[in-house]
């Protein structure tokens, strides 16, 4: 009795335009309630929508990034329903003919394999306002600042078969929309919202009834909610019951999903083309312009890192998953730093320090330029890799530039061969029994000698040279 899970995701991505999709009110987050809702947003009698060109361009950027069909003539339609945070009593959305059609995106699974997930469509629509239920006992308070903010609704094919795959897909889209600079991806602020359509079936059966999960604002919760829902559905079906098609809210505190009342009660949306808007026509020139303006996409970048820079697929995946990280990394190697060494530093020390201190890479106290200098000092043998880690810590705490710290702390590597030779000669002459043991075959003792050299030089001797000279003198 093995159950298969079928998951499709609907992602609402708030587009980072300055003004709303159909009006000139601001979309800036955090304003005092209802100060960014103009007459058009409030649905006063007689107001009319006019389409924001940036929203169209952003939708096209997305479409081109997922190799989607672009519908050169798309239509805005009204989705009619009553809710207090929907001022006009309808949401302007796209129904039969969305601006972006079928596309694809590939995701990396945990086992390292790739999977292709289909994107059914992506369409433009306006966001609703916010309903606040706990401000008053007898009232629900409505803030319409958010009403009219442009959304790109990205609908996936039901191609995912586990919560982990769904999360991988969501993360990929999350990274992509930030990469192409159409969304700030801030899930806490609600600029990136995932709804999951989940159903189960026995292998070979047709698709089961699905439930829609809403109110999920983190990837962690997405995984939990989906797994909970799969369990719930399987339990129902195994007891002979049937799954109801409904919308369920995820409660992260109680870690459960519950059915949503009234809002989704048998809603007949009565879609029809919005007569206040005309067909959106996209020219070939516009598409070409947008294509040219797209940055190198994560998939292409990853390939380049592997092919041209010789990085492993795993490393390339990590370095390209977030645009800011990729940009940081590329600044370093574009200055000429060694790719592998740079990758290790970015993914290692830097990443650890950022995580530990809960800092985003954009706010890193060590800039990419400074890290470049540090890496260069390793490559040019000024300091060893081990010492570099100490320097890194001091840089992080704001103790000056790489060179300043090396100078002040006297951390310069000893590379003077003659000086090293004389120190090594001293150590050899003071440790004759170990020398004899080494020459007799105890090759592990090399470490002892290296240790002695390091002690004598306070760690500043260049390990490679030390090894070389020791091997010469002890042979």
């Amino acid at each position, binding site marked *: 009795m093995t159950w298969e899970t079928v998951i499709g995701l609907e992602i609402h991505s708030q587009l980072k335009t300055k003004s709303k999709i159909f009006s000139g009110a601001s979309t800036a987050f955090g304003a005092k309630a209802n100060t960014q809702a103009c007459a058009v947003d409030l649905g006063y*009698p007689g107001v009319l929508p006019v389409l924001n060109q940036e929203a169209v361009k952003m939708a096209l950027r997305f479409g081109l990034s997922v190799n989607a069909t672009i519908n050169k003539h798309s239509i805005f339609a009204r989705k009619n329903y009553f809710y207090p945070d929907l001022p*006009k*009593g309808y949401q302007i959305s796209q129904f039969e003919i969305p601006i972006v059609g079928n596309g694809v995106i590939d995701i990396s699974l945990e086992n390292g394999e790739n999977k292709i997930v289909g994107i059914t469509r992506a369409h433009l629509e306006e966001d609703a306002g916010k309903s606040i239920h706990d401000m008053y006992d007898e009232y629900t308070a409505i803030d319409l600042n958010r009403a009219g903010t442009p959304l790109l609704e990205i609908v996936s094919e039901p191609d995912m078969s586990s919560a982990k795959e769904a999360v991988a897909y969501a993360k990929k889209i999350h990274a992509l929309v930030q990469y192409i600079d159409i969304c700030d991806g801030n899930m806490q602020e609600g600029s990136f919202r995932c709804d999951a359509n989940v159903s189960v079936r026995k292998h070979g059966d047709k698709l089961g009834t699905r439930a829609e999960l809403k109110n999920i604002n983190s990837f962690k919760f997405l995984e939990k909610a989906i797994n909970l829902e799969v369990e719930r559905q399987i339990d129902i079906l195994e007891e002979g019951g049937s799954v109801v098609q409904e919308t369920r809210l995820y409660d992260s505190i109680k870690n459960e999903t519950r059915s949503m009342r009234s809002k989704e009660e048998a809603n007949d949306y009565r879609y*029809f083309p919005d007569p206040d808007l005309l067909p959106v026509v996209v020219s070939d020139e516009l598409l070409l312009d947008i294509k040219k303006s797209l940055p190198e996409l994560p998939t292409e970048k990853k390939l380049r890192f592997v092919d041209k820079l010789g990085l492993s697929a795993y490393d390339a995946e990590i370095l390209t998953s977030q645009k800011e990280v990729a940009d940081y990394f590329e600044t370093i190697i574009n200055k000429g730093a060694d790719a592998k060494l740079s990758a290790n530093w970015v993914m290692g020390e830097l990443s650890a320090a950022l995580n530990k201190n809960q800092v985003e890479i954009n706010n890193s106290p060590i800039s990419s330029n400074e890290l470049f200098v540090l890496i260069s000092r390793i490559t040019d043998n000024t300091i060893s890799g081990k010492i570099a880690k100490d320097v890194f810590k001091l840089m992080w705490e704001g103790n000056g530039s790489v060179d300043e710290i090396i100078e002040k702390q006297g951390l310069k590597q000893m590379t003077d061969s003659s000086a090293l030779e004389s120190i090594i000669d001293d150590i050899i002459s003071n440790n004759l029994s170990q020398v004899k043991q080494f020459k007799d075959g105890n090759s592990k003792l090399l470490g002892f000698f290296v240790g002695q050299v390091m002690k004598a030089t306070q760690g500043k001797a260049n390990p490679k040279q030390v090894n070389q000279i020791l091997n010469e003198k002890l042979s």
Partner: protein
Amino acid sequence: MMHNLTIAEQIKGLKNRDFSSLELTQHYLNRIDNSNLNAFISVTSDQAINQAKMADSILAKGNAASLTGIPYAHKDIFCTKGIKTSAGSKMLDSFISPYDATLSDKLNSQNMVMLGKTNMDEFAMGSSNENSYYGPVKNPWDTKKVPGGSSGGSAAAVASRISPFATGTDTGGSIRQPASLCGITGLKPTYGRISRYGMIAYASSLDQAGPMTRTAEDSAIILNAMAGFDSKDSTSANISVPDYTQNLSKSLKGLKIGLPKEYFSEGLDKGVEKVVMNAINDYEAMGAKIIEVSLPNSIHAIPAYYIVAPCECSSNLSRFDGVRYGYRCGDPKDLNDLYLRSRSEGFGDEVKRRIMIGAYALSAGYYDAYYLKAQKVRQLISEDFKVAFKEVDVVMGPVSPTAAFDLGSVKDPVSMYLADIYTLSVNLAGLPGMSIPAGFSDNLPVGLQLIGNHWSEELLLNTAHQFQMVTDWHNASPVE
């Protein structure tokens, strides 16, 4: 008497200091006060006086716009900032608009004088002005009769000379039909000619504003001020505005006039037909050529319109929910109660009927059979006109099957709808149409309809004006 002057004459009078805008305005305000036609919902006397004084000071400086100081009546469907805008409905009885419609703004910027907001069928739904929350409007020619609708207040005001002109809106005939029933000149321009921003929407793809005046010349003067592209209205056409007064006097010799045979069948009152045919004869005498044309799909205009319009309006009127403005029921128990009672108490019967029809026609399973089918029929109707306009320059016919009927005499909604037969096609095709006074039947005015191709307002006004040069119907008045 000042009120018997046309706008063209009043403009001259103001320029020549024969009278001031203040005198003109006060004259009209007095007449409005003494009128019992119920043509106005709000009379903005204080503001009008102030506007007139302002206009006079600008006129004195000599740098006035063409319409500075001219008074007008504004249909209560246009938002006017700081002033009650009711759309003839209890739903908006308390609504003081926080913004100006583009049209209101345009007229204000010429320093015109707004006398008040005129009565209308609620949310522009009706053909008799009997559907207003503020009571019916009376026809100045016979106060037991309807003035037509939905711009009944505007038509009655102009006909009874209590305003030199009025703004109207036309979705299925709401300028042309009341113009016909009240004996004045009404023009619905091409869809997209005048901005819809701030004009409370009934059926978005059909609604269009237009001037209601006594003469075609006045209509041209006003159209100059009303027309133009508006960036706030996505359906506004970015087409330049010619000077509509320039070619009014061109000769009509050789003008090809099409008479649709479908417009002259049974159902058309004999008296009305006679007036229309006499007018056609007058055109022939002016050198026009009369050609029979056919608009075979025009009979389907009624079902097509009475699906498209209700569908669009059912959605347009969803915003009236008692939440952000307008009527809210007392002590709503919960959200649904708020919606149900605010809307049921706020809307009149005809509005509720059309909302229900629209909601039904758009609902799951019916969209294809109704809305989509109606839009296909719309295409056919539009094509009929395209074919006709290959043969003729202007199409003419009656506006309404009868002259004005008794108040309260038509109770059945469907009968009311059927009377729109001659005007609906024009809106469905987005074409410009006019009604001009053409005579009387049983002492009641009868209008002649002129329909032109897209953007042919100049030709229509010219055609109308020349008729008014050889006939006197437009000068007839029900009052002194």
